[in-house]
């Protein structure tokens, strides 16, 4: 990784799981097996249908 501002770590995605407890759970999202796999469940590629209510994502040391 090319170091910028002498940083060694670039945060690609900030912490968000615990925060999602606050606004999540509406259940309007797609059932994961209704998509393409039908056998190899990947939940993390389902989109949240409630994005407009989500807390803003804050990136740590995002400039690195």
């Amino acid at each position, binding site marked *: *990784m090319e*170091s910028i501002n*002498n*940083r*060694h*770590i*670039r*945060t*690609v*995605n*900030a*912490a*968000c*799981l*615990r925060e*999602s*407890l606050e*606004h*999540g*759970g509406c*259940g*309007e*999202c*797609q*059932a*994961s*097996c*209704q*998509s*393409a*796999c*039908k*056998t*190899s*469940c*990947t*939940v*993390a*590629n*389902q*989109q*949240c*249908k*409630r*994005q407009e209510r*989500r807390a803003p*994502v804050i990136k*740590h*040391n995002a400039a690195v």
Partner: protein
Amino acid sequence: MVHTFEALGLKLALDTGSGALHQLDGIAFDALNPDPVERARLLSRYPEREAEAVARELDELRESGALDSPDDYDASLLSEPGTVKAMCLHAAHDCNLRCRYCFAHDGTYRDPSRARMSVEVGKAALDWLISKSGSRRALEADFFGGEPLLNLPAVKEIVAYGRERERGTGKRFSFTITTNAIGLTDGAIRFINEEMDNCVLSLDGRREVHDRMRPDAGGHGSYDRALEGALRLIEGRGGKSYYARGTFTAFNLDFTNDALALADAGFEHVSVEPVVASQDEPYALRPEHLPQILDEYDKLAEAYVRRRREGRPFSFFHFNVDLENGPCLRKRLTGCGAGNEYVAVTPEGRLYPCHQFVGRDGWEIGDATTGAFDSDMQRVFASNHVLNKPDCRACWAKYFCSGGCCANALAMNGRLDKPYELGCAMQRKRLELALAVAAIGL
């Protein structure tokens, strides 16, 4: 728990508890080595000042909750069963192909009558789903089989009924269909492209791979017919979602070539899935295949990135992890929702936890025509979430896969809560690559 790994030339760290993903340089990667003795040895190679600077950055991340964050989420969050919101409608237990790896035994689910769903049963199933869905607005119904196009007139009537029921209930049906693309007349394509929010087209990739595993009832390959129909369908899709979905087996462990064959044929959205089969079958994936499969996923990811950089992108289902707008924790804990939020309906109206359970003795969960629903069994599936699966506790990927497919777990290990190990190893590899793709930012 922090998982450090290298993929696509990047050094990365995933913080399991928070979901934060970090890209690291060499010294930061070494500073997160899980073995303290090895970590000290590695760090001794760097100037002390550099090691201290890395330590400060890591401390900042820990303080902000983006590293070494607790992942001890409370299982009581999920103590109550969910609300049923999705169903798989088995429009036909019949098929015009004889795919050698079909989990449904030539699409019949061992039903000698090769039954097709009547309009009445389909309507009763949608009524049942609406009655069970509580305040959920978005409902899903996937037409599946066998081959659902063998019963297209009924599918059309069931969809029309669903649209009618949307009015007055405030519900919105998302209809989808999974088809082998053999019976795609112009009329069928028009209907699918108007009504189906997603269409899964079963194509295995290269002609020889497809024809070997997907012959018709007369033993003839189906590649040309399937490809021709599927291409006509996507031409009129108008931007709506679809997937060309292949299955790879021990016969095509070089499945990158099949994913690329689908992309080269004109499909932008591609999925290639590992076959799940009895270990007795010659095409079954076995533990000794794993090193080659994992290498092949690397090749697929490299090709995926290369094509994106060259301006001829395709999407691969398992690399589409959305880090910023992905699912909430509750969703990540509960997974696909089989038997809890999701059921399959046979042509006669019998309910099962999902399509993979259909016909398995002892797993009938209700009947859409009578309204019967086994809430005790629903509770069993509701409590089978990732926090209750012993093998998942120490796994870094647990909030991405939710403990995997419980039908596979049952088939391979005889119990719902013990994941299929080979499937887990492939899943972890796909996730590492998906995270690397996200870090690259393509």
